Structure formats: structure tokens, C-alpha cells
């Protein structure tokens, strides 16, 4: 019995640890459908700089049909502290979003997706990275702490 509980506890802890890296504010797997991948290109029409997640609204035109997607991002706090603000991504910017659609697919009022990978059409990132997140530590980033 004791060993069984230990195995359950360890398994649960490992599972939780493995799954929460990208979960952050919430369980993404509860919100998004792993069987509904998306790869969309569209024009930004609105950015909501709100907590706990910022949302980028993208207008996608395909086969004569226009669909508006709300793409979930992270917290605005981090970007603002990095000097990235509302002027960094503005309405009219074209972006490519690769990720997964929400489990609820009513698209009312808008379709919902997570922005697992958000780039400009030329492949560059929509939001610049920062040291500790892939960028080199060259001293130019004030967040490079002692």
C-alpha cells in the first residue's frame, strides 16, 4: 500500500511537472484541441493587453471567406518590462500563427486558438526574445542580472 501511494505521488508529481512548463496560467490541454492544429496567416486587427493573457485578434481571408481568430498569448507584464509595448505589434501587421484551435469550436463571436508559434511571414518572430529565452547574453539586455 505504502509503495503504491509513493508511486502514485511520484507519477503525479512528474506528470504535473512535465505538463506545466507550458501550461503557465492554466491547463492548455483543457482549453485547446490536440486534434485541431491550425496554421493561419492573417492581419492583426486588435491586440488586447490584458492579464492573465494578452489576446491577438487576427483576420484571416481564405477562399473568399473571412474568419476572425483570437490568439492567446502570455502576460503583457513581461513584454512591457522588456520595453515592448502596444506599438510593437499594431493593427495591420501580418502574422503567421501555428498552434491549436480551442475545443469549443462555435467561433462565436470569434474562433479561438493558442499561439504556440507566432511569426512574421518571413519567419522572424513577432515578439523579440530576451536573454535566458534563446537570445545571446551580450549585455544589451538590462534583464541580464548579476
Amino acid at each position: 500500500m505504502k509503495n503504491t501511494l509513493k508511486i502514485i505521488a511520484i507519477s503525479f508529481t512528474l506528470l504535473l511537472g512535465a505538463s506545466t512548463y507550458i501550461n503557465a496560467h492554466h491547463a492548455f490541454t483543457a482549453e485547446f484541441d490536440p486534434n485541431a492544429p491550425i496554421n493561419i496567416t492573417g492581419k492583426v486587427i486588435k491586440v488586447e493587453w490584458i492579464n492573465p493573457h494578452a489576446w491577438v485578434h487576427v483576420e484571416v481571408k481564405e477562399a473568399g471567406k473571412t474568419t476572425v481568430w483570437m490568439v492567446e498569448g502570455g502576460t503583457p507584464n513581461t513584454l512591457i518590462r522588456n520595453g515592448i509595448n502596444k506599438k510593437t505589434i499594431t493593427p495591420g501587421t501580418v502574422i503567421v500563427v501555428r498552434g491549436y484551435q480551442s475545443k469549443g469550436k462555435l467561433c462565436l463571436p470569434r474562433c479561438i486558438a493558442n499561439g504556440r508559434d507566432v511569426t512574421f511571414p518571413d519567419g522572424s518572430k513577432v515578439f523579440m526574445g530576451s536573454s535566458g529565452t534563446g537570445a545571446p547574453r551580450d549585455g544589451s539586455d538590462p534583464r541580464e542580472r548579476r
Partner: protein
Amino acid sequence: MNKSLLILFTVIALVGGLNAEEWTQSKTWFGDPDLQGTWTNASLTNLERPDYYDTLIVSEEEARTTLRMSEEFSESVDNPYEEGESPQAGDNVGGYNVAWMDPGTDLFKLDGEYRSSILTYPEDGKLPRRYIRWGLEAYGMYRMFAVADHPEERSLGERCLVGFGSSGGPPMLNVLYNNNYQIVQSPGYVMILVEMNHDARIIRLESNHNPDNMKPWLGDSVGAWEGNTLVVRTKNHHPQQKFRAGIRHQILVMEGAEIIERFTRTEENEILYQFEVDDDKAYKDTWRGEMPLRAADGEIYEYACHEGNYAMANILAGARAEERK
């Protein structure tokens, strides 16, 4: 003594005096040591020591290795697809870009040395868990992530009540982002605003604990000054806050746990934060840790979590969509 020697000695004395000048703790207008400001505990150092480290103190080279591993992992998360490639059905849905995260940029240093864990005791850098208790509590946590009949069943973080893991504490531990705290003092009180998810710890100074049936989300904290150190004792932890899980740490804090924290400003831009957790229901031994709270740039952006919490509605809608299948 000739004139040249006199000038030389004077210069040496002045330089020596400047070097000897140490930072002194400033006081608030009401005389308490001043801890006020915006602070961050963002760091690549986690609560528990990774298995690839044997010691608490690690070398510069080992610290660089950690940074490189973090960067490589972040890069793989940040851009998982080749140009033109699409996500595959059945894969992990993932999260959002790493650019939205702020876990820290290095292992933190104390006394000029890199640390491999926040934990200082037990000496192996691992929590002395009682696995039977953890096993008994696991199902309750599983339900928080697996059931979505009502908002009340979801995790406290998703409900915008408290932050993830033990961000709000006590003990206050680093998480994936929003590792910022604002300390404000007034006569008889110290308030710590925890950025994630906009919780405020209100520490009453020279006060008794509230009755045991009162269990605030972040526990009942009272404090006192020991010299320039603020000593905070917390008990009566909220029963729904006992399992605090995030990527950086997973801890269990039972209602009867007693936690002591110590805040000592060691220099203008740093507070030494130390804690001790005594919880014999969940742990075989006391555990202790320490880390720096470093001065943060800028202020905390308002975390109006409830107002913008589309995710909760989407999670519930997702559960209803699953039911219709």
C-alpha cells in the same frame, strides 16, 4: 614630515575611508527598516536541486551550462516548427511563445557564489516528502485539472484567486513569469503585493494570529523586527492552497504548517529572503531555503485577472464540447 608625504597619506586615508564606507539600512518615516520597493526572485535556480548537481554551491562553468540548457530548451519550445510546417494532429497543444515568459536569466548568487537550489536544508537539496500524504492528496489535485463542471472545481490559478505554485507563498517561490513583488510599509503593517495573480499579503506587526478557523488564501501572517530583519510567522493555511504546483516546484503545505520567513535588506538593491517550513504531516523533516530578492526595473503592471480571464470560459466550453462527442 614633508609636504609630499602629507599629501600622500591624506589621499590614502580618503580612499580608504571611501572603501570602508558601507551601505547602511535606511528607515521609514516611522522608524522601521525600509524594505519598500519592487523586487524580483526571477532566477534559473529552482527550489530543489537538479540531479546533475551534487553541491549547493556551483562553479561559474556549471552555471553557464545551466544557462545554455535553459536557452536550448526555450528555443525548442519557442519555435517548434520549420518554415512552412504545420502542427500535427495529436501532438501536445503546447502553450505560447517563450517571449511571453520570464523565468530568469541565471542561477542566483549569494555571497558571490552561484546556488544550485533554493533549498539549503536538507543538504541534498530535495524535499523530505512523506509520500503517503502526497499520494493521498494527489487525487484532489488531479480533479482540479481534470474536471470542469463548474469554475469552482478548477485550480486556484485558473480561477484568478492566487498565483501558480507557491508564487504568493509562503514561502514565496519563483515561477515561470511575473516573479515580482512590491513591498509597502505603514505603521504596524507590511504589505507584499504578489504580481501573480495580484494577491496581497498583509503582515501584521507585533500582533497575535487570528483564530484558527480563519484561513486566508496566503495564510495568516504576523511579523516582528529582529534588528533590521523582518521575521514573519505564518500558519492557518487555506485548505485549497495546500498543493501548490508549477513547473518550477511542487510543494504541499498543510493547514497546520508553520512557516517562518526572514527578510533582511543586505544592500540597496537586494533583500536576503530566508524561510523555514515545519509541516510534519507532509514532510519527514523541516526544510529551509534562501534566495535574493533583487530590485526590479519598473513597476508592476496591474494584474486585473478576473476581468480578462477568457481562459476560464474557454475551458468550460471545451468541457461541454467534449461532452457532446
